[in-house]
Structures are given as structure tokens and as C-alpha cells.
């Protein structure tokens, strides 16, 4: 489950049972290239390499474990530490607020999540709090109507009022999901708007939706969202392309929030639980 060049590098590590320093360095270089090409934060890749190298050279393999297997264990262990385990959302009454950068997949994922809760027997409802993007109301309403999911939106320019009135109207529903407009860290008035929506809706979950192809920007953006409203979960979308999602990982380490779900396509059913093992083997090419 590791890429060819990484497999090759690891093979050279312990021909004679003792760890060859130069082979470890070659393996580290392969890991670095794989992680950098997967968009993992450059500093994280460098820190990770240093830790892996130290452990590979200093730690004695546990009884019965070959040197090579021990090194693979270390690499895997360090990556799990960076990525964490996936934690799907609890199947209980809650309010969820979707946030993220422009075009990341919030609206589509809102509909996917609503469908997920509907299938699990809960009554979901969706609020469209995006009054900026032309057609946002139509997009989300169309998705909800096709699934018979309760939808609240207004063709007004008052996102705060919409959320207040929406939550008022939808009291009978178990899970309320609030879709918000895309925004980034330099749009201060939009960040403030997000904080206001957060303050009045007091959501149990604040999910940061990120495109799997996002590069080094992910770290700063995640930090801004987290400092602003406290992110409780990350959703990585568009993993059905060729992007590895390494950038979104930085969001995990910045926010300390687990990856709740992944998006693997444009259709409503294209929502999957996050699996660490599979993700790591994709990351290592």
C-alpha cells in the first residue's frame, strides 16, 4: 500500500538487519517528495522528516519486528499523528454551520449531509444563508426539493435575519444545517458576518469544507476560520479527482478538528466516511 519508489527506498533500509543511515535518508527523501506533491504543508513535511529520521535511527525495533517493518511503522505512526482518525458526526439533534472558501463545495455538501441524516432516520432541515452568490438560493432549494428536505431561504439581502427566522421556523426538525457564503481570510467584513451568524445560531458543529486540491494556503485559511468561530470538523471535497488532500490536512492540525466526511463526487450519495489508512496510502503515492 505504499508507492513504488517509496517501497524501493524502504527495501534498501535493512538488508542485513541493521539500519543503513544512507538508506534511511533516501527513504526520507522519497517520503518528502510524496507528501510535498500531495500538498502537505512544507514546514509539516520538514518537521515530520526530522522526527521520522530520529526515530528510525534511535529507536530499537520491538522484539520480533524486522528493522524494515519497524521503519514503516514509524512512518505510518507519524502520519496518523498528523492526520488523526476520522470522526463522523453524531446521529443526534444538532445545528450545523457550513463554512469555507469560495467554491469549496459547501452547498453541495450541505445537501449531501442533509440526505445522510435523512437516511439515518433524523429529520433534517436546511437554511440558505448565502445572499451574495447569484443563484445560491435556487441551487440549494433545487437540491433540497429533489430530496424532499425542508428548506428555508429568502430572496433578501439579510443573512443574519434569514438564520434567525429560519431557526424559528424549523424548530420541529432534528438537524438544522446552515449553508453560508464562501469567504476567505482577507475579506474582513465577511469574516465578521460569519462570526455574527455563529453568535446567533450557536451551532453544535462548525464544519470547514475544503477542496482536496488546496495547496499551501490551507494552513492560514484554516487558522483564520478556527480563530473566528472554532472549527469542530473538516470535510475534504472533490477527492474523486487526482488531488490528494494534503493541504486539507494542515487544516486538521491547525484546528485540532477531525475529518468528518469526504466528498467523492457531485451527486448526493457521493459522501463517505473518512478512512485514515486509505488516505495515508493515497498520500504516499
Amino acid at each position, binding site marked *: 500500500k505504499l508507492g513504488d519508489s517509496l517501497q524501493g527506498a524502504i527495501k534498501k533500509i535493512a538488508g542485513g538487519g541493521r539500519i543503513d543511515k544512507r538508506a534511511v535518508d533516501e527513504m526520507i527523501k522519497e517520503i518528502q*517528495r510524496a507528501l*510535498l*506533491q*500531495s*500538498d502537505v504543508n*512544507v514546514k509539516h513535511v520538514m518537521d515530520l522528516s526530522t522526527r521520522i529520521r530520529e526515530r528510525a535511527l534511535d529507536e530499537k525495533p520491538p522484539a520480533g519486528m524486522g528493522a524494515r517493518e519497524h521503519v514503516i511503522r514509524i512512518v505510518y505512526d507519524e502520519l496518523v499523528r498528523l492526520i488523526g482518525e476520522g470522526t463522523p458526526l453524531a446521529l443526534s439533534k444538532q445545528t450545523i454551520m457550513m463554512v469555507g*472558501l*469560495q*467554491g*469549496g*463545495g459547501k452547498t453541495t455538501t450541505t445537501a449531501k449531509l442533509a440526505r445522510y441524516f435523512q437516511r439515518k432516520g433524523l429529520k433534517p432541515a436546511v437554511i440558505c444563508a448565502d445572499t*451574495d*452568490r*447569484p*443563484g*445560491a*438560493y*435556487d*441551487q*440549494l432549494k*433545487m*437540491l433540497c426539493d*429533489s430530496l424532499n428536505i425542508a428548506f428555508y431561504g429568502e430572496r433578501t439581502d439579510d443573512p443574519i435575519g434569514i438564520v434567525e427566522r429560519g431557526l424559528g421556523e424549523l424548530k420541529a426538525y432534528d438537524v438544522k444545517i446552515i449553508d453560508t457564503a464562501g469567504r*476567505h*481570510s*482577507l475579506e474582513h467584513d465577511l469574516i465578521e458576518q460569519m462570526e455574527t451568524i455563529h453568535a446567533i445560531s450557536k451551532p453544535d458543529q462548525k464544519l470547514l469544507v475544503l*477542496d*482536496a*486540491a*488546496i*495547496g*499551501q*494556503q490551507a494552513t*492560514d*485559511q484554516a487558522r483564520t476560520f478556527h480563530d473566528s468561530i472554532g472549527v469542530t470538523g473538516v470535510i475534504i471535497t*472533490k477527492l*474523486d*479527482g*487526482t*488531488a*490528494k488532500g*494534503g*493541504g486539507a490536512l494542515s487544516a486538521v492540525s491547525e484546528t485540532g478538528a477531525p475529518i468528518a466526511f469526504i466528498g467523492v463526487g*457531485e451527486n448526493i450519495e457521493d459522501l463517505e466516511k473518512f478512512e485514515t489508512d486509505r488516505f495515508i496510502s493515497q498520500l504516499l503515492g
Partner: protein
Amino acid sequence: LILDENDLEGPLWDLEMALLESDVALPVAESIIDAVKDELVGVHKKIRANTSDIVETALRNALIGVMSKEMFDLDDFIANATKPVTIVFTGVNGTGKTTTIAKVASRLKDAGYSVVIASGDTFRAGATEQMEKHAERIGVKLIKHQHGGDPAAVVYDAVQHAKAQHRDVVLADTAGRMHTNVNLMDQLEKICRVTPPDLVIFVDEAVAGNDAVERAREFNTVVPIGGSILTKVDMDSKGGAAISIAHIIGKPILFLGTGQKYGDLVKFDAGWYVDQLFE
């Protein structure tokens, strides 16, 4: 003094890291740095000259070279082309195609051209409504079909309308699609075969990392990309994806999208771009 590999290693590594941190795809950064190394090994350096400065200048020039390849001016292109000029916009999901078309339409209208927009995204929820609102605000004609219709038919229709009504430019929107989706890539190829456009513009975003290379290359094998537009440059991004894209398909970046309003479209300038990369 003659520069050798050892003198260059440190400065080249630092610059490679800087490129990677600016979102230049790894294979692109490596290839550019290698070219700079080949160029500098064996070069004479004055005793008091700073190796790091020499390397940085060489890299700057290499990057300007990559970014200025096959430069062309869209305004000149449209001015000189037989009307109606048809431009198809394509790219993966969410990169800003629809918004960019609105910006281009607004710009062309201000320049005195008559513009028709083809609402070629017949798949995504709310796509036509989105394009319709933009067309209404800008004051340009929109050609649209039923949800679920054939996008190639919408583009064909728009071009026929433009010919009949003597319009200057047709801007065709298409649905976002993953280069890994064979059916959608076949559909894209068909859209560009049924009504061969005068220009295909690839739209991608400045915040994309290494995947920018993958998708630009794959799209370019399916349709002939004539130029790209890089959006969301206002996202505090160095936008290294521009270098990745220009390098892999050898076609220029035409504009930068710098926000969500119609005026947020800036003509690409290689010198300015490389300067801000080095800031």
C-alpha cells in the same frame, strides 16, 4: 571564481522551498530549478558578487521566460477575429468559470462589443439561474436550454443566434468536471467539436496546489487550450499554480481573477507576477 554545484546547492534549495511554499507544483519547481542550475554551473562570478543574488536573478529570468511564452492579447485577438468569436470556458468544479465569464462579458461590453452568453452548464443545480442573474445585471443576451439538456446544443444555438443577430462574441459556460471522469471529458471534446470555438480558455484557481499541473495537462489533451485565467488571486495567494499551468501546457495566463465583482479581472503581466512571487 567559477560557480560549481556545491556553491549553488544551498541557494537553489532555498529558492525551491520558496517556490513550493508559493504553490508551484513539485515537478515544475524541480524542472525550473534544474534548468537554472545547468545554466549557472561553470559561470564566472566576480569575487564580491553574492551567489544567492546571482541565483535569484537567474530564477527570476527563468520564471519570466516560462510566463511569457506565447503571450497573446485577448483584446487584439477579438478585434482581429471574424465575428462572432466563440470562446469556451472549461475547468474543474468550483474554480470560478461562471463568475469569470460574467467578468469577461462585462469587460467586452464596456469595450463596445455585443456579447452573447451560452449557458452550457445544463447539469448542476442552479447553474442556469446563476448565469441568468449575471447576464441580467450586465445586460447581455443569454441562450439557455432545459436543465439536463445537451450542452453542445446550447453552444451551437448561441453561435447561430450570434450569427443571425450579428453579435461579436459568444462566451460559452460549461459545467465543472473532473479530468478523471471519462464521460464528462468526452462531452467536453464533443462540445468543442460540434461548434469548434475560436478559443478555449482553461479556468483554474490560485489556491490550487500540485493538482493544477494534473488537470491543466489532462484538459489540454482533450481540447486545445489557448490560454488560462487564474482566479481567486485575492486569496492572499502567491498563485504558484499559474507557473505550474503555464509550464505544463506552454500557453499563457491571460487574466487574473482578483475578487467576486465584475471589475475584479486584471490583465496578466509576467513581470509584475514574478515580482510579487519574490516578495
